[in-house]
């Protein structure tokens, strides 16, 4: 499992305007819609599911990273979006810090292993300080994608 396997190149954003959790989640889901990964008729349902998941406990995992996610029956494979927020988003993370990098995951309910492997891969890569910091400093979607591909090619310690 690598970023190229589940992150949609068309769903990487660096110009996140929203500063609040729900708005950021909507913006990221919008990028999945624009990238053709989710259907318009399911957009609201997916956003609602992701928000409900957040109510059960923040998906902020520390170091300025959050992984908002849900299972949804309308997707037949794991799909993901990445967003970078320069100003940060309050996400009620355990460490109290705002998040600057978000990975959104929407997965089919019958393939929980893919979701777990994606979480593992994201976490392993983000443990590398240089990768994490470079991602936070990205200014264009192309920069983000190139960093993800560099990580897939073992350019960082993850």
């Amino acid at each position, binding site marked *: 499992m690598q970023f190229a396997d589940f992150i949609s190149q068309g769903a990487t954003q660096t110009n996140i305007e929203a500063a609040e959790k729900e708005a950021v989640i909507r913006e990221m889901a919008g990028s999945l819609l624009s990238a053709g990964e989710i259907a318009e008729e399911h957009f609201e349902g997916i956003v609602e599911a992701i928000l409900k998941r957040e*109510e059960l406990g923040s998906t902020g995992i*520390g170091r300025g990273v959050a*992984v908002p996610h849900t299972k949804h029956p309308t997707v037949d494979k794991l799909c993901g979006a990445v967003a970078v927020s320069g100003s940060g988003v309050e996400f009620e993370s355990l460490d109290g810090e705002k998040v600057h990098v978000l990975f959104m995951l929407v997965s089919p309910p019958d393939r929980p292993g893919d979701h777990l492997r994606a979480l593992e891969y994201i976490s392993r890569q983000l443990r590398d300080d240089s990768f994490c910091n470079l991602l936070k400093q990205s200014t264009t979607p192309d920069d983000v994608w190139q960093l993800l591909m560099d990580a897939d090619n073992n350019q960082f310690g993850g």
Partner: protein
Amino acid sequence: MADSLVTQMATVLDEIGLHLRPARLIAEEAEQHRSRVELAYQGQAVDAKSIMQILTLGAGPNACVEVRAEGPDAEQAVAAVVGLFSSNFEADSAAQQQGGAASDVGPAGS
């Protein structure tokens, strides 16, 4: 007298594995103890107070994980974390049943 290392094995009962929600519960519990708390799995040892580090284990269903603690309240820390595993993160499943219908089609958890 030096603090002794306390260890105990625990099994991942969750059918998805050690995903984000149980990882968070473990980290929250471990954080309440002064001792250093670790999880070890397949040759890796991680800080149990870090959600991100726990997730790097990629421990799947039925994985046997070693819970370790060293410090003034090591026994309590290990007992508490092992208790979470044993109850299959009961707080997790209880909260799931209350509010997670839209986000949980099929197996519980995420």
